[in-house]
């Protein structure tokens, strides 16, 4: 059976991307806030946990061919863990300013990209609602 990509699935995916970006920004902001806290370990959204969270979620099943497309993996779950492989300073803190700022900026870009596509989708929907006017 051919996979049909529905609007709902696309929008859910975009929503997930935005949520992920927000999570990354929040974690980077927390790290930056603790730039000078002795003993603080830089946190990051761990990919493995995030993936597991997505896979472990029981996806809804379309039991009828008339059902609308079901968005897979609903709740977004991000877990944070110590970021590996960072050199710690003498006070035990291993936050790296450039890395965190980069992560903030990149997450902002990802969010913007998803937002642009999502608002294009919304425009289409509005166009349809207004009967093309």
């Amino acid at each position: 059976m051919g996979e049909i990509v529905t609007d709902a699935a696309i929008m859910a995916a975009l929503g997930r991307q935005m949520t992920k970006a927000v999570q990354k920004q929040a974690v980077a902001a927390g790290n930056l806030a603790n730039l000078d806290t002795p003993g603080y370990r830089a946190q990051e959204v761990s990919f493995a946990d995030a993936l597991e969270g997505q896979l472990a979620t029981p996806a809804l099943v379309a039991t009828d061919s008339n059902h609308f497309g079901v968005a897979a993996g609903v709740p977004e779950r991000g877990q944070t863990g110590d970021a590996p492989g960072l050199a710690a300073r003498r006070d035990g803190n291993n936050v790296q300013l450039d890395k965190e700022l980069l992560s903030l900026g990149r997450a902002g870009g990802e969010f913007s990209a998803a937002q642009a596509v999502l608002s294009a989708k919304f425009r289409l929907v509005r166009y349809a609602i207004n009967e093309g006017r």
Partner: protein
Amino acid sequence: MSTLLSAMNASASALDVQRARMEVAVSNMANADSTRGADGQPYRRREVVLESVPGEPSAQFRGLVASGVRVAAVVEDQADFRRRFEPSHPDADAEGFVAVPNVDVPEEMVDMLGAARAYQANLTAITLIRDTIQRALELAR
């Protein structure tokens, strides 16, 4: 959204803390030669102790929280006062030495630079988060 706001709060707490660090460094430098304090002793160098504050765990993002930071304490540096030979000084001891504060001005300068940098970084973070919120609001247009 609330995650973004909590992230912004974390950055704001850092701005607060860095400003406190700056104030303490400035106070240390201002008093680098104060040989008499309220207790009659020379001024003692002060230091800010920072502490990470775990944010409120959110139900939606299990375990994901932006941790803020706060000033845990301002402690006095217990290092010995430095001694300067200045027999004419009113606070000089019998041997002609004056106890001067244990403040090292270059060290304070470095500390202040660090605080200014960290302040800047957190301000940038706030700007970026604000942009993200702005983008999210644009969806509603």
